[in-house]
C-alpha cells in the first residue's frame, strides 16, 4: 500500500470500511437499489419510447398490458413513462433538500457552538422553534407561501431538514471547542474560519454524512406527501405524489394509477433508509438506534 495509512492489523482504513460494508448484504441491496433508481430515471428517454406528456384520450384508463406496460391514465398518458420521469423530481428534491438543509443547519450549529453567548441562544432557540412544527406541516405552510415550483419545494424541505443538522453540529462543536488541539490552533494564529472549518467541521463530517443518508429518505417521503396534497411541482410535470393524487378518484376502475407510483415511492424511501443504515454502520456504529 503506497497510501501510507496502514493500520496495525495490516488493513488500511479503506479496506476496513469496504469489509464492513460488504458484510452487510442488506445494505448492499439498498445501495444497488438507490443507484438503480437514479440510473433508471436519468435514462428514462432510453428506456421508454412513450412521452410522459403525450395525451391519447381515446385510450384513457386503459389497463396495464400490451404496449403500455403499466396502463394509461385519465388523459391516456403512459403510466410507466410518467413514473420513470417522476423519479427525476423525487431524487432531485431528495438530494437538493438534504444538501440545503445540511449546509444551513450545519452552519447555524457551528456558529452557535463556536461563538456562544447571545448568538448561540438566538440561533438555537430558533432551531427549537422550528423543531416544534411537525415536519410535514412546516413544509406545507412554507410551500403555501412560496407557491408551486421545483426550487421552492427543495427550499421548503431544506428548511424542514435543517434543525437536526444544527443540533448535531452545535453539540459536537461545544465539546470540541474546549479541546487542546483547538487551543493549539488558536495559539499558532489560526482564525475563526480556519478553526471551524479545518478542525471542528472535519471532526464531525462523519456524523453529518450519516445524518444526510438517514434524512434523504425523509426528504423523498415529505416531497411525495406534499405533492400528494397538491403542492410543489405543478402538473403536467409528473411526480410520484401527484400521480397518486390524480389516481385516487379512479380507485375502483383504475387502481393501477395510484398503486404503481406508490411502489416507486416505497422502493426509493426503502433504498435510502438502507443507504442511511449502511453509512451509519460503516462510519459511526455508535449512532445505531
Amino acid at each position, binding site marked *: 500500500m503506497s497510501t501510507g495509512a496502514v493500520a496495525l492489523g495490516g488493513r488500511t482504513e479503506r479496506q476496513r470500511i469496504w469489509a464492513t460494508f460488504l458484510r452487510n448484504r442488506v445494505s448492499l441491496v439498498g445501495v444497488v437499489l438507490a443507484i438503480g433508481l437514479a440510473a433508471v430515471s436519468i435514462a428514462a428517454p432510453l428506456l421508454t419510447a412513450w412521452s410522459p406528456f403525450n395525451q391519447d384520450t381515446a385510450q384513457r384508463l386503459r389497463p396495464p398490458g400490451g404496449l403500455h406496460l403499466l396502463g394509461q391514465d385519465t388523459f391516456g398518458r403512459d403510466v410507466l413513462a410518467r413514473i420513470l420521469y417522476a423519479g427525476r423530481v423525487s431524487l432531485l428534491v431528495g438530494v437538493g433538500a438534504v444538501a440545503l438543509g445540511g449546509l444551513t443547519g450545519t452552519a447555524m450549529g457551528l456558529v452557535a457552538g463556536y461563538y456562544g453567548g447571545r448568538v448561540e441562544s438566538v440561533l438555537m*432557540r*430558533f432551531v*427549537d*422553534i422550528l423543531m*416544534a*412544527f*411537525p*415536519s*410535514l*406541516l412546516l413544509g*406545507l*405552510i*412554507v410551500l*403555501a*407561501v412560496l*407557491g408551486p415550483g421545483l426550487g421552492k419545494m427543495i427550499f421548503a424541505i431544506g428548511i424542514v431538514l435543517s434543525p437536526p443538522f444544527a443540533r448535531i453540529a452545535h453539540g459536537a462543536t461545544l465539546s470540541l471547542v474546549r479541546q487542546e488541539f483547538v487551543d493549539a490552533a488558536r495559539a499558532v494564529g489560526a482564525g475563526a474560519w480556519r478553526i471551524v472549518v479545518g478542525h471542528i467541521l472535519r471532526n464531525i463530517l462523519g456524523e453529518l454524512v450519516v445524518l444526510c443518508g438517514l434524512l434523504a*429518505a425523509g426528504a423523498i*417521503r415529505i416531497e*411525495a*406527501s406534499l405533492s*400528494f*396534497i*397538491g403542492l410543489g411541482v405543478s402538473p403536467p410535470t409528473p411526480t410520484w405524489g401527484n400521480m*397518486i393524487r390524480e389516481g*385516487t378518484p379512479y*380507485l*375502483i376502475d383504475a*387502481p393501477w394509477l*395510484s*398503486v404503481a407510483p*406508490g411502489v416507486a*415511492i*416505497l422502493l426509493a*424511501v*426503502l433504498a435510502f*433508509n*438502507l443507504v442511511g443504515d449502511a453509512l451509519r454502520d460503516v462510519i459511526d456504529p455508535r449512532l*445505531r*438506534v
Partner: protein
Amino acid sequence: MIRYVLSRLLFALPIFLGVITIVFVIVRILPGDPAQAALGDYASPDAVAALRQRLGLDRPIPLQYGGYVAGLVRGDLGKSLITGAPVRDEIVHNLPYTLQLTLLALIIGTLAGVPVGVMNALTRNRLPDSIGRVVSLFGLSVPAYYLGILLILLFAIELRLLPAVGAGDLTSPGDALRHLILPAATLGLVMAAAVARFTRSTVLNTLGQDFVRTARAKGLQPRVVTIRHTLRAALIPIVSLAGLWSIGLIGDSVTTEIVFARPGLGSMMVGAMLQRDYTSLQSVMVVYTAFVVLINLATDLAYGFIDPRIRY
C-alpha cells in the same frame, strides 16, 4: 412535582410564542391579498377595500400582530375569511375527529409495535426476527396515505367489509367506529413499524445488562425476567420516543384524513390553504403546534412514572 410542571410550562411558553410569531410572519407574506381572494377576481376595488378594513388588514402589521396575540390569549382564534364564522367553532367541530383518529392509532401502534419488537429481540437473528425486521423496514418506508389506499382497495373495494370514506354518524358509536377502523389502522401500522424497530434494539441492549443476568442466575422464570426486568427497564427509552412518534402521527394524520375524506383538522387546514383562508390556516397551525408542545411536556412527566429514580 407541581413546581416542575410549572417550570416546564414556563419553558414551553417562549417556544410557543416563537411558533405563533413564525406562523404569523409566514402567512402575512403569502402571495395574493386575502380580501381579494375571498371576494373573487371580479370584485370591485371598493368592495375589496371595505373588506380589508372590516378584517383589519389595512392596519399596520405590528398592530395586527398585537391584536392576533391578544385574541389568542382570550381564546379568540379570529373569523374565517371565507365564511365569516369564528374559526374556533370550526376547530371545535373538527378536533374530535382528529383526536379519535390519532388516539386509536397510538393504541394500535403501541399494541402492535411493542410485542413485535420484543419478539424480534428474543429471537434475535432467527426466522421470526428476520420476518419482523423486513416487515417493519417496509412499514418505515411506506407513506401513510399510500398504505391507506392499499387498505381501501383491499377492505373497502375488494372485500366490501368496511366503509372507505367519511367519518360516519358520530351519534351512533357503531357506525363511527366502522368508519374509524381503516384510517386508524393506516396510521397505527405506520407507527408500529417505528415502534417495533426501536423496541427491538432497546430490548437487545437491556438483555445484555448485568441485572438481567442476575435475574436469570437466581432462577427466575424466563417470562418473569422478560416482562418484569427487561421490558420495564427498556420502557424508559421507548416512552421517550413515544412523544416523537405522536408528533409524527400528526403529520401523517393530515394525508390520511385526505385519503379517507374524513373531516378533521388536517382536512380543514388543507381546505383553508387551497381557499387562501389565512385566519383559519394560521389558527389550525397554532392548534397543531400547541399539541406538539403539550406532547413534549407529557413525555417529560411520563419519565417519572416509569423510572422511580427520576424525582422532581
